């Protein structure tokens, strides 16, 4: 491989992407295959993927990937040709092979980026088991015996009768080779008239020699008599002769060449051994092989009829298996980094735009007369235009970054299969809305929470088959993974028809763990109670299992999802099942937000969390123990001063006049609502989220920051955390 050095790392990058796509495809195909072990299209699809991985890995010098995919490919080839059968053992081993390949390919990425330590797994054992499987599953003619003839140097070459017409220069070449102790297989190819009109070019037999060894010489032998009257136009009047130094057994050579249709093959051994034997028997008259090579008939006629069909049924290669989408000339691959840079630049553009709008607004207030006011109008036109254009740019870059959730959903069938297998449950995964699109950066972050939730459904949701039957359900539990758009959000739901979450159990657990007081637990609605599962240190698993007991709780799911400005909630009916809902913004970087001022600081609340804004007369606020509340259309709504909640010590306190109405922002998240009393509402606008400086990151209730048109900093509120703060404050 070293003579073909590919220094360009982008070859490897391409390979990683491509291999990843094939792994997904393979797993989808595997799952179909498990249900339909005979499906040739599926087998062909898997074969093709492994084949592609093997092909590229060879070039890139990835020896381990190559050797493992090679043996995997061999087994798949046996399977698709019907020489082996898809059994559960075969499936397990294939799954294992793909898992190992994934690790190996991941290592390529690790080495490429020089990040982390490669796993560098040992593949020898797996390869050994694959080899055993293969040799056990098939009678093994495969092992190639070396060329049979052992040499001892002898003189003049004597050829069997079939080759006696060989031309003198060819003879000389052969003599020299034999003198060097080289044993050859000679193949005399008699072209049949039927070959005319087929696309087969008889000269293509020359490269065929490479399949079984090295072509050392080729020639032809005239067969027509020189009698012109006997000359027939529909006949070939010469035979092709190939002399091959074989690297395979004669049997293999014959098998390969017998596959050529419309050509009759005769095989001869030519070697020092043979020459000597022939010499002993007499020149030119010997057609039978010398004793030393008795086992291998020296002249084997191919059957008269066209040779047996080549074992590959080419018709079957058409596939209906899930395919990668075409990605030829009309799509390009762009690195994530470039897209991120683009996105950030667009984000900056939006900040600029906001700044300019801000200036224009001030101009409009300040300059109302004279020539300058016309300029301000022009400026306004320009800024409106800029507004439109930047919106379009933003929409396109967001569109580019959108990928279907399928890209992560596709790994779950396999995961659930393994989970079901490990726990002895029967679980069927249904997926709905896999084409729903979501920002690329979000999708990567979404993967872990989803894995956890699905594990949770498999482990705690779906019951054992016997228990299910007892409660009148079908043996097989159903987990539904569903994605859809709702406004500016993406909803991902994980639904199971398992045993559900019992609010009474949760309440008891919360009290036992000291998370809640008895009074509060009783005051809670059932829905509030079951949402306690997202609190840290809360696990209701009766036993820690291999599946869920990995030290990761629902609280991690919640904090991950929150980091994405999303939220997670659960609904459940005891005995019927649960639905976990993840609600995420379409994109991370830009949000629609409501700006407000409190305690001299500007805050923003993500628009998705804002339910409504109100003006509340102070006298309608009632004080329940330590909490303030208002009556909102017949419902009690807890309200609280934002600046107090966040401990912002107010430079402008007391600014509110007695009797003045209080602006209240009603926010809701995870089915809970509360009102925030602020000093004033500013406006709704798009905000570009910037990561928080580390010293700000630990501020409770704040999830990020942004820059406003006038250069001021806006703190972005985390609605869910605000709720938690408010609850703590009230206790």
């Amino acid at each position: 491989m070293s003579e073909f050095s590919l220094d360009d790392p982008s070859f490897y990058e391409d390979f990683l992407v491509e291999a990843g796509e094939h792994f997904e495809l393979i797993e989808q195909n595997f799952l179909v295959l498990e249900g339909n072990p005979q499906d040739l299209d599926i087998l062909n699809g898997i074969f093709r993927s492994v084949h592609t991985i093997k092909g590229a890995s060879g070039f890139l010098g990835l020896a381990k990937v190559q050797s493992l995919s090679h043996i995997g490919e061999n087994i798949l080839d046996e399977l698709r040709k019907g020489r082996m059968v898809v059994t559960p053992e075969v499936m397990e081993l294939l799954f294992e092979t793909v898992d190992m390949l994934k690790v190996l390919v991941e290592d390529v990425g690790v080495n490429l980026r020089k990040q982390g330590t490669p796993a560098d797994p040992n593949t020898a054992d797996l390869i050994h088991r694959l080899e055993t499987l293969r040799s056990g599953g098939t009678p093994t003619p495969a092992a190639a015996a070396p060329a049979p003839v052992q040499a001892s140097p002898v003189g003049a070459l004597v050829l069997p009768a079939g080759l006696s017409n060989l031309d003198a220069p060819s003879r000389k070449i052969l003599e020299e080779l034999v003198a060097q102790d080289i044993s050859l297989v000679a193949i005399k190819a008699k072209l049949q008239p039927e070959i005319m009109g087929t696309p087969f070019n008889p000269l293509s037999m020359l490269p065929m020699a490479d399949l079984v060894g090295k072509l050392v010489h080729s020639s032809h032998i005239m067969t027509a008599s020189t009698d012109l009257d006997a000359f027939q136009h529909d006949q070939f009047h010469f035979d092709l002769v190939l002399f091959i130094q074989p690297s395979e057994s004669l049997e293999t050579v014959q098998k390969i060449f017998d596959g050529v249709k419309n050509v009759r093959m005769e095989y001869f051994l030519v070697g020092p051994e043979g020459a000597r034997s022939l010499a002993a028997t007499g020149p030119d008259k010997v057609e039978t092989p010398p004793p030393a090579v008795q086992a291998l008939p020296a002249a084997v006629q191919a059957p008269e009829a066209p040779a047996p069909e080549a074992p590959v049924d080419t018709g079957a290669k058409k596939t209906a298996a899930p395919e990668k989408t075409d990605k030829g000339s009309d799509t390009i691959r762009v690195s994530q980094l470039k897209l991120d840079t683009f996105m950030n630049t667009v984000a900056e553009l939006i900040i600029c735009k906001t700044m300019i709008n801000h200036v224009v607004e001030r101009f409009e207030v300040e300059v109302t007369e004279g020539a300058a006011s016309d300029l301000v109008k022009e400026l306004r036109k320009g800024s409106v235009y800029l507004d439109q254009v930047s919106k379009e740019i933003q929409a396109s870059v967001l569109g580019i970054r959108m990928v279907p959730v399928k890209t992560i959903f596709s790994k779950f069938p396999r995961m659930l299969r393994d989970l079901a297998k490990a726990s002895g449950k029967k679980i069927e995964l249904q997926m709905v809305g896999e084409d729903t699109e979501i920002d690329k950066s979000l999708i990567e972050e979404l993967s872990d929470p989803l894995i956890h939730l699905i594990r949770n459904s498999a482990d705690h949701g779906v019951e054992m088959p016997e228990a299910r039957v007892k409660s009148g359900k079908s043996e097989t539990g159903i987990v539904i993974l569903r994605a859809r758009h709702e406004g500016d959000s993406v909803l991902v739901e994980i639904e199971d028809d398992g045993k559900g979450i019992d609010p009474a159990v949760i309440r008891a657990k919360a009290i036992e763990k000291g998370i809640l007081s008895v009074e509060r637990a009783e005051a809670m609605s059932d829905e509030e109670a079951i949402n306690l599962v997202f609190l840290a240190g809360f696990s209701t698993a009766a036993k820690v299992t291999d599946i869920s007991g990995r030290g990761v709780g629902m609280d991690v799911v919640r904090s991950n999802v929150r980091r994405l400005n999303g939220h997670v909630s659960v609904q459940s009916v005891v005995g019927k099942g649960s639905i976990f809902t993840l609600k995420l913004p379409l994109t991370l970087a830009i949000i629609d937000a409501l700006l407000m001022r409190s305690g001299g600081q500007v805050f923003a609340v993500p628009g998705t969390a804002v339910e409504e804004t109100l003006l509340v007369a102070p006298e309608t606020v009632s004080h329940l123990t330590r909490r303030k509340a208002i009556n909102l259309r017949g419902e009690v709504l807890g309200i609280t001063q934002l600046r107090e909640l966040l401990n912002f010590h107010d430079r402008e306190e007391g600014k509110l006049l007695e009797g003045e109405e209080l602006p209240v922002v009603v926010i809701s998240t995870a089915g809970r609502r509360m009102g925030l009393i602020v000093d004033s509402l500013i406006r709704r606008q798009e905000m570009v989220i910037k990561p928080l400086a580390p010293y700000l990151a630990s501020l409770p209730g704040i999830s990020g920051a942004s820059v406003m048109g006038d250069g001021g900093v806006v703190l972005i509120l985390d609605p869910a955390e605000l709720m938690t703060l408010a609850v703590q404050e009230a206790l």
Partner: protein
Amino acid sequence: MKILIVDDSSTMRRIIINTLSRIGYSDVIEAEHGKAGLEKLGQGGVEMIITDWNMPEMDGLEFVTVVRTTNSSIPILMVTTNAAKEDIVAALQAGVNNYVVKPFTPDTLKEKIESLLG
């Protein structure tokens, strides 16, 4: 000389193009499977075909078979792995002129191309 490369793996196409350019062939067009290959071929000007075998939509063997129904002379080189020797025979029968086994060196590819042109 314009060469059509038919391969579903973009990595493989890049590798082949890279190799071709090293040995002096830079006029290359690409297709990601047999069907697309036929379209490209229909646009004219192609003087040699290098095709993979295992591809979606239309595999290399079908592709070659279709090409050969209308064009018996264009040199066709099949890129394959040595996994299935019987398959290579089938490919040659279908009208492939020569084949090259992956992974190949630039020299091997050059040799194969020259054998087709010579």
